[in-house]
């Protein structure tokens, strides 16, 4: 499996590198896109508002989690974001007839150019975080980024699997994953109080923002174990959901399954 993964990465990126104009355009525009977004958020929340500065490190940390998690996943397993499309277009079918798990084959079938821009941006922000917040906070952010990557994996798989059960499930899935990314980048846990905090645990951003940030801020073992265990459970559940989707598809065929 490992050798297949590295081979896929090598060949996907060889294909990207064969068109350098496209590669650089993709990377540059994604970096510009992200800078614009971060600038806009900063403009809205912090520019000329000294009373909000206390939330700035929180905002930076979320940026690290979002970009590293999202960028890593799309760079290494770019097919997962497009899982819904792969199912909808019938490209998953031939994968079902091979001796490998179709989810793995779908995941390695693509690698995103623009994701490298996200990943680099996340790493750069992490570097800045080490300077701005200090070593311990930034180290927890770095570790939490790994967990967030796994969390995004679970969300991508679950969202993509919807294509087995809904017409235009692919576009619904894409909307869910992109919304999760957006929510991850908003400093929501600092905004919501009382009962309204409940929503933070009900949307997918619970895995990618709420739980990791609670551990990073509180730095206690309880939050750590909650974050790890819930992420792991969600990952397992999402793969089970995918397997259920495949079983359903095999039993009743694509058209009837919807």
């Amino acid at each position, binding site marked *: 499996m490992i050798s297949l993964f590295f081979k896929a990465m090598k*060949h*996907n990126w060889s*294909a990207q590198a*064969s068109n350098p104009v496209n590669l650089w355009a993709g990377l540059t525009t994604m970096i510009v896109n992200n800078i614009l977004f971060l600038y806009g958020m900063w403009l809205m929340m912090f520019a000329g508002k000294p009373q909000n500065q206390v939330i700035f490190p929180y905002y930076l940390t979320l940026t690290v989690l979002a970009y590293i998690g999202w960028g890593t996943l799309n760079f290494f397993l770019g097919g997962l974001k497009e899982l819904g499309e792969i199912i909808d277009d019938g490209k998953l*079918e031939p994968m079902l*007839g091979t*001796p490998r798990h179709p989810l793995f084959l779908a995941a390695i079938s693509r690698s995103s150019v623009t994701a490298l821009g996200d990943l680099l941006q996340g790493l750069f922000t992490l570097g800045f975080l080490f300077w701005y917040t200090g070593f311990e906070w930034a180290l927890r952010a770095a570790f939490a980024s790994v967990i967030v990557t796994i969390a995004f994996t679970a969300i991508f798989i679950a969202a993509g699997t919807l294509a087995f059960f809904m017409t235009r499930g692919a576009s619904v899935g894409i909307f869910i994953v992109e919304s999760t990314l957006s929510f991850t980048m908003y400093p929501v846990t600092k905004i919501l109080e009382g009962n309204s905090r409940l929503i933070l645990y009900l949307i997918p951003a619970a895995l990618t923002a709420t739980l990791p940030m609670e551990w990073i801020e509180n730095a206690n073992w309880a939050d750590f174990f909650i974050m790890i265990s819930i992420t792991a459970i969600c990952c397992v559940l999402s793969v089970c959901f995918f397997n259920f989707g495949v079983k359903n598809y095999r039993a009743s*065929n694509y058209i009837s399954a919807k």
Partner: protein
Amino acid sequence: MKSIIAKNLFKAYPKPKSQEPFYAVKDLNFDINEGDIVAFLGPNGAGKSTTIKMLCGILTPTSGSSEIVGKHSGSKEANLKLGLVFGTRSQLYMHMTIYENLDLISEIYYVTGEEKKKRIQYLSELFQIEHHLKSRARTLSLGERMRCEIVAALIHKPRVLLADEPTIGLDVVAKNKLREVIKSWQKEEKATLLLTSHDLSDVEALCHRCILIDHGQKQYDGTLTGLKGDLAGLRRIQIITADKNKILMNHVPLVKPIQTGDEYVHKYEMNTQQIPMAETISKLSSHYGDSLQDLQIFEVSLEEVLGARFTKMAVQ
């Protein structure tokens, strides 16, 4: 050993509660020996693709079972012995070169190192794609891509190749080339080939045996010659006469004249099982005498045979 076994295969698709389920495949039974090339034929909606998908594990049967080289369909062991080609669905990664595709697909099937290199070289030469190895899949023509698809399906030396419409969309030259290379490969490796195609010249060129399916049930399983059944003896005779005033030969009951609209070209239909060919030619020769310029004899085509069968099946 049997390469492919289908035992009491059923495939039902669910319908709204008030309706009976729709059976795409109903109690299908057949087996194919190692090294056979078999055509799997039927009209549109007969259940061919559903059957192929059940054999390779993409779909699970509602009941019944199937095996590939003694292994349960859909199992990892079965998939390792199976190659798949879908004419309407590419398995290649369009953004990669052909070599990169073959390299990755080898890895999927656990073919690595020297064995992989030898296999790619051998198949590239056999299927004449050596000069395409460095080209990106999306830059190739359909014919070139289909040969690459088949190479990709054979990279792991499968014992069985399931080909669903492999020549669809190809021109005459590309089809002939593909048939040639498939024949060479099959002769070399003695693998089993199950082929579905709407192009009957593929069937005639490659297959010895044919399984005919309609409404999910097997209608015929035997040789191509046997498929013709009653039509095996049917012949059409075309006469070119120099005398435009020559009338058609009407007096021989078992030799039926066919109107052509051309005064110089006369056609007749007869069955060698009812009247010997020698007698027919003798009578025609007597009738036309010196005005007989040319005589051609045609067998009934496979298209016609299948067309007649499909029509009969539809009526039933």
